[in-house]
């Protein structure tokens, strides 16, 4: 057997990794850095001249920065502190966004930690399924969640229906901060739960037993041994939650009303009003804050890497206690209460949405809303949003963007695991899409690529759909990195070294040994990319203006204005399509494991 073809393939494979890296970088530059750059640069380049006045005006405007703007108008920090302490303080848009992000984070952590406790320390039928299910809220489209909460909290929503049935007066939760916070918790509490559960399950029982044998009581052993290992998980998930809720858009749009606008909403408004300079400046401020938190998160995460060593996890208690001690009773009562809250928070929007899609305004069952979708499909005018193109586009875009996001994500994961220096930098680069305003991404793609660019007399333009796929891929690939990188990092180095000693080049060892062993992570990443794409709203809504390339989330938003019914019907369709796609991919790829 001649080995010449082996050598040739080897040479190709060796270059292959470098080529893939170059291609990934090129794609990122073209669909992310360049478009975003062209928009952000407008904050400092007005009418062709470099200027900082737009930026300075923004920083000095209390409308945006609240009392902190005083810092930039020359007043000292003491004056700022005093103003912030005053009862009639102004937070400004940025301040309010940060404020609601902090509150959302606290609520998410408070809601997520008990779930981690139950998942990590108890055994009950369906535990593993429940654990897998915690990923679902995160991949549900935000606009759908928004619609669900509108259906729950609205004047005629399910919450009020339940309350009036019980005899309690109605509550007005729409357009309140509370509604936004709860919707944010819906998204992020499962993230907190997931990460913390993983950390809890990797605590070595021997360490706790040692503490107990040395004289520490159960609570003390928990505080001294277990809790320190949980803090990093809680902090990192809190940091991510902050970044996500800081840049929130669809939820605030639907539930916030006019007074509770966040930074992203204003960026959207300014851009829509063609005030690009201000929009860009505001987006830059948003970016700076989000990137700062993200970078801190990455540094912290790197410093607290979970060891791959197999530990003996803490033993699990049965949900139905063996002995009904007061403590067991109190614990179970707490769990039942918590389960009730969780059911309300997580099931309510879904159930409300389902109910709203089959009820009329006066409460009778009907299929009118679905019929509306069908008639709109058959008889709608060209400029109107129709359901089938929305569904078809969503599915097609999801598939295409996953095909792009997967190799990109895998390449970045390989680089972040292999690189010894600059790993944080590469990680930050990989996670940058989290920190950048989706509006800016959409806008950049729209003006940069869709409207085209003049190069040497040729106009290079990209179809709207291609730009949408690009935006979705950029939104999705960080999740691929997050599911693939931990698997790669926890692989035993001696596996790769054995392969190399046997004659495999570094790239060959990657393809033959490493990738097959992290395959579950790759599959999970693909499922994520598809779900993220299906739910992507912010950039898509900018790119789909006027074009025929609208997706299900965009359609929902268009319907939401008129009446709730068709929007919820569309939302149900989106939920079904997303759920089915996610499950199909998971099934096809095997068990999903991440973190």
């Amino acid at each position: 057997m001649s080995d010449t073809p082996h050598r040739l393939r080897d040479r190709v494979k060796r270059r292959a990794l470098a080529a893939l890296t170059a291609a990934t970088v090129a794609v990122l530059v073209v669909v992310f850095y360049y478009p975003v750059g062209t928009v952000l640069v407008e904050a400092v380049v007005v009418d062709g001249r470099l200027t900082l006045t737009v930026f300075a005006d923004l920083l000095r405007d209390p409308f945006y920065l609240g009392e902190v703007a005083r810092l930039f108008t020359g007043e000292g920090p003491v004056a700022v502190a005093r103003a912030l302490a005053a009862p009639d303080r102004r937070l400004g848009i940025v301040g309010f966004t940060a404020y609601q992000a902090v509150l959302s984070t606290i609520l998410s952590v408070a809601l997520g930690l008990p779930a981690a406790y139950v998942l990590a320390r108890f055994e009950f039928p369906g535990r593993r399924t429940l654990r897998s299910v915690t990923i679902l809220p995160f991949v549900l489209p935000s606009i759908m969640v928004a619609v669900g909460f509108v259906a729950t909290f609205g004047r005629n929503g399910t919450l009020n229906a339940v309350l009036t049935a019980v005899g309690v007066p109605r509550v007005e939760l729409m357009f309140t901060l509370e509604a936004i916070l709860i919707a944010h918790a819906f998204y992020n509490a499962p993230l907190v739960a997931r990460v913390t559960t993983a950390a809890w399950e990797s605590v070595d029982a021997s360490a706790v037993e040692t503490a107990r044998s040395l004289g520490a009581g159960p609570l003390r052993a928990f505080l001294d041994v277990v809790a320190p290992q949980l803090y990093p998980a809680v902090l990192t998930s809190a940091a991510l939650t902050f970044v996500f809720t800081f840049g929130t858009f669809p939820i605030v749009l639907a539930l916030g009303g006019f007074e509770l606008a966040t930074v992203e909403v204003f960026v959207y408004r300014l851009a829509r009003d063609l005030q690009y300079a201000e929009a860009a400046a505001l987006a830059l401020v948003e970016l700076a804050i989000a990137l700062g938190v993200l970078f801190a998160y990455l540094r912290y995460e790197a410093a607290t890497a979970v060891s791959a060593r197999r530990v003996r996890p803490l033993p699990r208690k049965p949900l139905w206690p063996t002995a009904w001690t007061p403590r067991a009773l109190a614990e179970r009562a707490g769990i039942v209460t918590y389960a009730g809250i969780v059911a309300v928070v997580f099931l309510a929007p879904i159930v409300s949405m389902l109910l709203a899609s089959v009820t009329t305004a006066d409460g009778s069952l009907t299929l009118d809303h679905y019929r509306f979708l069908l008639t709109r499909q058959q008889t709608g005018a060209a400029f109107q949003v129709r359901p089938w193109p929305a569904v078809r586009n969503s599915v097609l875009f999801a598939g295409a963007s996953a095909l792009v996001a997967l190799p990109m994500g895998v390449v970045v994961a390989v680089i972040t695991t292999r690189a010894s220096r600059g790993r944080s930098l590469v990680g930050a680069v990989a996670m940058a899409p989290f920190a950048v305003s989706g509006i800016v991404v959409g806008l950049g793609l729209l003006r940069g690529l869709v409207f085209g660019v003049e190069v040497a007399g040729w106009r290079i333009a990209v179809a709207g759909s291609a730009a949408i796929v690009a935006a979705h891929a950029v939104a999705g690939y960080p999740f691929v990195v997050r599911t693939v990188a931990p698997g790669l990092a926890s692989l035993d180095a001696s596996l790769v070294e054995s392969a190399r000693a046997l004659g495999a080049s570094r790239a060959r060892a990657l393809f033959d040994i490493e990738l097959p062993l992290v395959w579950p992570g790759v599959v999970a990443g693909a499922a994520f990319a598809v779900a993220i794409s299906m739910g992507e709203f912010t950039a898509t809504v900018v790119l789909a203006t006027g074009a025929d390339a609208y997706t299900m989330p965009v359609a929902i938003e268009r319907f939401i204005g008129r009446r709730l019914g068709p929007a919820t019907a569309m939302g149900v369709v989106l939920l079904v399509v997303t759920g089915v796609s996610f499950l199909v991919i998971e099934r096809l790829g095997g068990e999903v494991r991440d973190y």
Partner: protein
Amino acid sequence: MRSVTTDGSGARDDREAHDDRDGAPYSPEASGDATTDGEFGRPGPNVPTAVEFDGVTKRYGETAAVDSVDLAVREGEFFTVVGPSGCGKTTMLRLVAGFEAPTDGRVRFGGSDVSGVPPEARDVGVVFQNYALFPHLTVGENVGYGLRFSAPPGGVSREERIDALLELVDLPGTSGRDPDSLSGGQRQRVAIARALAPGPDVLLLDEPMSALDARLRERLRLQVRSIQRSLGITTVYVTHDQEEALSVSDRVAVMRDGSVVQVAPPRTVYRRPASRFVAEFVGDNNVFEGVVAARGTVSAAESEGGETVNDDGDEQRVVPVAVHDTTLAIGFGGGSPERADDEGAATATDAHGTGWSSTPRAGDRVVFCVRPQHLQVDRAQNRLRADVEGAEFLGETTRVHLTWSGQQLVLSAEEPLAGAVTVGFDPRDAHVVEHTATDGGADTS
């Protein structure tokens, strides 16, 4: 470096003088190499060097894991590097495999510098401590992995080669099995088969027995030795277990803190350790420090004759040494335990020993050791009154711990002892490891 020709013969120009081991069928008789001239059939000093360390240093930051090491491993030799944790032995192995590059110095294979040659291009097979079997491939696919990059030696088909190797490691018919379903010892043998499949020139094993229980370890190391013998492949074996090192190796290199302290066949390392460290590391030992006493304070033993002959046939001088207020008679002289030379290249000894303490003078500081089996209760010479602290029954022998003049001693006996005992040893059974002359010139190796 290997150049694999399309007919898979793997012959290299500079090896024409030797048998083409890659193509030969496995036969136990293959170990009879014409250039072997050491005892027990091990490669002697005239055998060409397979792997050489030439002034190799490896630094990590400020610390030198390997410090200016010169070493030559002979072709066909079973060469073990042994030492305590952190002594640099694993780093040595990784330098040979190509996973690390030396900070200074060169590593050579058969005379050619292999700096810059990546691991996949070096002709080595590696067995790791945790075996590192690829969990997603079957046993057969694991063993055959290296054959994706080079043709099986001997012109046989891939399947034939895999089967032959599995037979060699005594795991026939396991080709289709999952590595997870194997026991630790079986996995280790698959790892060995995998490393040997491409027919490498050098086999490297990094503490392969550490994860196994004691009984299995003893059985498997003999198996590894017998496989190595039948293939005649140069083998570098790393372990912290000195008993393991002594039992299977042709030569042993003892390392400490990045330096090689002694390189010699196992018998030499055991009987003539080059330094106090080696004396204490390899097997149990009793180490005494004393000062050469003036004549006139001789014991009856010494007066039997100023000169005597030890077990190796070397002539020795019996000298009085004062240890803890007792004068003992110690035999000086004999073959010197060269550090880097082999006993085959031993310098001639004169009647009073070599550059080693040829004239021990009164006042010289001396460190010598006596093995536990040479401390005996019924010995007439060098009597020491000691108290028994405890005894360990080990089956074949009993290890008895004694205290004499504040110093801990160990002796091997057939029966446990108790209370106060008097033990003695033959002057010829004392081995001098350090000798410092009073004029400041130290005469140790």
